[in-house]
């Protein structure tokens, strides 16, 4: 009798039969398959009329789910497209367009063992409370010290990857929040080591700079639905105004900045290095490993960047802005943890970074939601999908030069509040490298939009 087994993130096919998906494993003396092909191999064996015994799934018991989710029309059509594609595929919607609700509705209708994979611990909490509210069910969690498996379980990408050998045969539906992460070389193994035949990917930014998003159709399914910010603006999302504000460096800062940047540029010139893309920069970083001078140049560049970021003028500009918008709910973004704490201490406002204890982070966000706090300064941790409702003003104190981060930071402000117009203001040091970064980012964004429009 042919039998199919789960073995640490792969499948073993025992018995005298081959499949188009298997590979002979001489180490164990039978065929081995990627767990990803579970659906295919079942179909193959059934079609070939091979009697077999399936020992693969070890599913947690089903629980009852409440039905309270009401979808907006565009969410409805996104879900339909996904269902028509045999419950597989990626949905691209801008931040705050209610991706979570589409997923919840899909779970309610499929009513099967589901693993939701999210990038951060905060998102685990957020998903779990949504599941409790909307589906009336308690959920399991893997990651951040917790390890409980239930019919609906939420995990980080890291834990889903590390525990694939243990979790891979426990779910039939996988939901990947911020699915663009899945295409990375290690995380893509989550898709390969889990048996789930049903898969949903959610993101606001499908494309990756490294082009790896082309792997997603094989891992999750085709791109089945896309809707742009523009199509939703005004209707479902609050419109926003984007401004750029330039501030100069003080004379002393400018002098220091020029000296450090000079060191960096001199090195590039001498070595005939041209930097156009992130890849060029990556190559330069590798150089610093073997060439002490390259490292010195890199350190000089970093110091220059720090001067521009931490410029006193920028802090003064921020003081003015905060004064002018006193009663607005305000989020301040910056890339640098040090700057977060400098500003937190200077203005005595709450800070959230990767160093902030979970409990305190929750408390700060809760107070912000309730209106007890009006302003939060934060580094990247709020980048992806964390709910910070009602924020109407955003300041960016430093840019990352990455399109995705840019859109998602915008997204955080796009909350629909009656009659509210959101403002996003980027504060950039004049005539420094930061201007170039910020310019490149805006340009890239426009290019992408055009590319999508012409499809």
């Amino acid at each position, binding site marked *: 009798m042919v039998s199919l087994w789960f073995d640490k993130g792969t499948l073993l096919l025992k018995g005298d039969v081959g499949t188009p998906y298997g590979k002979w*494993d001489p180490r164990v003396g039978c065929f081995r398959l990627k767990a990803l092909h579970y659906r295919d191999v079942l179909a193959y064996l059934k079609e070939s009329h091979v009697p077999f015994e399936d020992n693969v799934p070890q599913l947690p018991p089903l629980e009852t789910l409440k039905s309270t989710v009401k979808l907006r029309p565009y969410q409805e059509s996104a879900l339909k497209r996904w269902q028509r594609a045999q419950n597989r595929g990626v949905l691209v919607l801008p931040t705050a367009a209610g991706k979570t609700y589409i997923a919840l509705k899909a779970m309610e209708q499929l009513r099967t063992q589901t693993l939701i994979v999210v990038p951060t611990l905060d998102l685990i909490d957020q998903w779990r409370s949504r599941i409790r509210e909307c589906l009336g069910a308690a959920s399991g969690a893997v990651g951040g010290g917790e390890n409980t498996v239930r019919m609906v379980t939420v995990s980080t990408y890291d834990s889903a990857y590390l525990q694939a050998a243990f979790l891979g045969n426990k779910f039939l539906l996988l939901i990947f929040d911020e699915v663009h992460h899945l295409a990375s070389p290690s995380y893509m193994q989550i898709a390969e080591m889990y048996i789930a035949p049903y898969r949903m990917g959610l993101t606001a930014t499908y494309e990756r700079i490294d082009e790896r998003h082309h792997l997603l159709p094989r891992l999750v399914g085709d791109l089945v639905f896309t809707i742009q910010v523009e199509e939703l603006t005004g209707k479902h999302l609050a419109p926003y105004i984007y401004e750029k504000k330039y501030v100069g460096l003080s004379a002393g800062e400018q002098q220091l900045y020029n000296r450090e940047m000079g060191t960096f540029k001199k090195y590039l010139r001498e070595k005939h290095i041209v930097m156009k893309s992130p890849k060029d920069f990556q190559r330069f970083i590798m150089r610093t490993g073997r060439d002490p001078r390259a490292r010195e140049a890199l350190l000089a560049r970093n110091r220059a960047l720090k001067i521009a970021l931490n410029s006193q003028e920028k802090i003064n500009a921020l003081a003015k802005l905060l004064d002018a918008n006193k009663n607005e709910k305000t989020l301040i973004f910056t890339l640098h943890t040090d700057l977060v704490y400098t500003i937190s201490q200077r203005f005595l406002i709450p800070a959230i970074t990767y160093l902030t204890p979970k409990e305190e982070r929750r408390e700060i966000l809760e107070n912000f939601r309730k209106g007890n706090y*009006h302003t939060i300064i934060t580094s990247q941790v709020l980048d992806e999908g964390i709910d910070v409702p009602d924020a109407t003003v955003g300041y960016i104190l430093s840019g990352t030069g990455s399109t995705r981060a840019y859109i998602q930071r915008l997204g955080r402000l796009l909350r629909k509040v009656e009659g509210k117009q959101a403002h996003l203001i980027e504060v950039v040091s004049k005539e420094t490298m930061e201007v170039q970064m910020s310019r490149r980012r805006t340009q890239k964004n426009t290019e992408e939009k055009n590319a999508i429009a012409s499809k």
Partner: protein
Amino acid sequence: MLPSNLLTVWKRKGTIQPRYAKPSTENLQIANQLIEAYKHKLGKKKRTLKKVADDLEDEGYSYHLVRGLSLLLDRKSDYKCTSQTDPTELRRRLFQTTGKNGSATTLEQRKSIIARVASQLKISNEQLEESMYADLDSELTLQDFFPVSPQKLLEEYNLSLTQTLLFDATELKFTVSANWQKIFFKTKKLGLIYDAYKDNGFWVKIDGPASLFKLTRRYGTAIAKLLPAIIASLKWTVEARILWKFTNEIYTFKLESWKHAPLFGIQQTTESFDSYVEEDFAKRFQALNSDWQLKREPEPVIAGQHVLIPDFSFEREGTKLYMEVVGFWTTEYLLRKIAKLKKTKAPILVAVDETLACERLTKLEDQQSLNLIYYRNKIPLPPIIRHLQKAFKEIHAKQTEFLKNLNVTFTEPIIRFEEFAARTGVSTQAARSTLTENPPSNYIVLPHSLIRKDKLEKIKKKLDRQIAKIGRLPLTEASKIAETEQEYLTSIIQTLGYKIIWHGINTDKAEVIKRDA
């Protein structure tokens, strides 16, 4: 293990090696400076230690090394938040105040807010400023530090560096001189798969289930965790394939005990006996002084898809038997074990503890093909010796039979039994008994060899000529003559009809004369 940004390597012609910190004067000095800094910074903030490391980097020392060593020292340190007021509570009060009245956009506002909150908490403004983020990692105070020697720190660093490189390993091959059992146990526990093969020694390749489909670093971390067990024995060779993430190229990484063991300063551990029963058996067997060589935990034996590490091996002139000692067992377990044992071609004795048997033995009685030996308290020697002798005899008989049927014509002047045995793959004893029982016609039997008659005659003539001069010959000279003809004098002296006259025990004074003289 270190974060991968602290990994530093050199690559050459497809090989990769970490840049190890050899115990040079300079490296020992850096290590010492850092250790001393940690000792002296007790009660100081963590950022002051970071400053020490930064300064060393500015002096031009490798930042990989300095940061790596600091990190290892941090792990030997205990940091605590020493603020009198709880920073979280303090912040809560500050943020509530600015939440109500707006952020401190001017310095005057800031001052008054701080003063207000400080008085609420009954601390000074300065204390408040200091405590606001006193719980941040860089603000923690060094409470305790467990010092190491600079040498030891470098060794730890080198091991960590190796493990960090192995994070990117796709597979690892190794061979070791001991500890097989422990290594296999750990391999399984880490979810890895091993594959044993013979290639100039017994080798094991380690990777994971999904390695079958593509090169993956997925098992690198587990492989890194396995390393300490592998290099804990006296002799080892490790070879890993590293998928270098920056360039996506494959490199070979090789470690050999004779070359690299000193870098890690490893404390060798060899396994002690699993039980008193085994230890006791080994002692008693050794005391017999038999021709059999007893080895505890010999190299693994390949058994179908698996490998098996028997508890003992007995070896005598190319005849090898194994013994497995089974303590607590069920019939099912024993049968499974035996099924596995049977897949090996090697003969295995199974010593079974009768008193610990939890099922009746009758079920096993029809398992006649098994070499089961039951014991209570201690493993009995006689049945084992019987088995060994029987096996040896069987093999001896088989080999003699084999030699008899072997059609060889001898032409060489001297046939040494040992060489002949090695050439035909039988034991010396089998070779000797076959050759002496029925020697080829023109050969004469000597204790260790056969010699062609004309060859012996030639030696005899040479010796006779010398002895004839004065009726005797010094033993040393006679030996020389024999040796020029590739034979030992002592082997032929009897056959040729000579004897040795001793003048004291000194061989220089001994002489050879004709026996009938």
